[in-house]
């Protein structure tokens, strides 16, 4: 058995030092200082950090953000149409307002955006699913309905697209959106084409 007669002449093992051991030395003074300082810092951090509150709400929540928006004071004043466009519209209609060829129509200098505000409001409220001609070109895509958004938000984002990329049309008032929302309350389906929209108004 090779185990009872070990290969002590292996040059790899022979040239080694002994297996390591440890010196006995006291902890350096700066380690002691570090221990004390770190523990004090830890206690201070815990003491000074607001960590209470309901566990299920998450890490350091602003309670107002978790409550229904009615509770937000002055929310209406803070609505920024450009910001809404940037979060909800930009993926299809693009930052340039030029859309995507054949699928998502442009908003820049679009007759639908600059024209009758009632038509524009209804497109945004109910969406459109089918062919639409914009600036002489055909598009076939699906615009979702945005009626879950508030009148103030819808008015802000439509006013923004009517003023961006060289567009110049009057802003839309929340009251107008509200009125259109009430008039077309019964509608549950998107419009089927640009044609249908035209004939509706």
């Amino acid at each position, binding site marked *: 058995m090779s185990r009872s007669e070990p290969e002590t002449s292996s040059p790899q093992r022979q040239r080694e030092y002994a297996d390591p051991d440890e010196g006995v030395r006291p902890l350096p003074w700066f380690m002691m200082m570090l221990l004390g300082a770190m523990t004090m810092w830890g206690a201070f951090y815990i003491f000074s950090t607001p960590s209470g509150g309901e566990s*299920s*709400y998450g890490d350091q929540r*602003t309670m107002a953000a*978790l409550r229904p928006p009615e509770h937000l004071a002055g929310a209406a004043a803070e609505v920024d149409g450009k910001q809404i466009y940037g979060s909800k519209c930009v*993926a299809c209609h693009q930052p340039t307002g030029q859309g*995507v*060829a054949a*699928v998502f129509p442009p908003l820049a200098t679009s007759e639908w955006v600059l024209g009758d505000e009632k038509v524009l409001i209804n497109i945004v409220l109910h969406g459109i699913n089918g062919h639409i001609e914009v600036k002489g070109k055909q598009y076939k895509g699906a615009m979702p309905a945005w009626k879950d958004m508030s009148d103030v938000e819808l008015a802000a984002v439509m006013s923004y697209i009517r003023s961006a990329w060289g567009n110049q049309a009057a802003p839309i008032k929340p009251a107008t959106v509200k009125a259109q929302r009430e008039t077309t309350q019964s509608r549950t389906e998107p419009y089927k084409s640009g044609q249908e929209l035209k004939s509706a108004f």
Partner: protein
Amino acid sequence: MNAKANVWDMDELRLITGAMVILGGATGILVVMPYLLLQNVTPPAALKPYTNEQLVGRQSYIANGCVYCHSQQPRDTKQAPDAKRGWGRPTVAGDYAYDTPHLLGTMRTGPDLMNIGARQPSKDWHLGHLYQPRAYTPGSIMPSYPYLFEVRKGQPKPGETVVNLPPALAKPDEVVVAKPEALALVSYLLSLDRTYPALAGEKR
């Protein structure tokens, strides 16, 4: 000094005991306490359980590793402008009541998707974007997923979903048909909507 002289020297008993007590403490704090505190969280009334198709789509989200680039956890406004980017309000534990496995994510190579269904409710956009992200978001580095679609000549069969694509992406005599996985994935993405108030219906 010999090791035997010191009865307090580190031995296997201390090693095992110390190691287990420390691991037990860490597990108690990071695993057991959250378990006890969160096990009775009720799902918010406005949050619907996933449908079967959405669950299939969620599986596809997992299988294709969307979580490695997309988080599902908007932070509070006082920490980061997540809400201002349209990603939604900060989330609470109840928002994840139906989310097992959790998909909170650790990267934002792409945007947060917790509310993508509310922000981007267009099915067409999602299908086209999965087929070729760069046609819809110039400069995107999201992979394209051609294997979730079928490209062929001729007409689609009844019941198939044809993807409406910009002309640069589709040859005139070809149709791009979404496979069931793609449709399920989009259905899951559209279900991601936590825009309801987190505290509605909860006791204050």
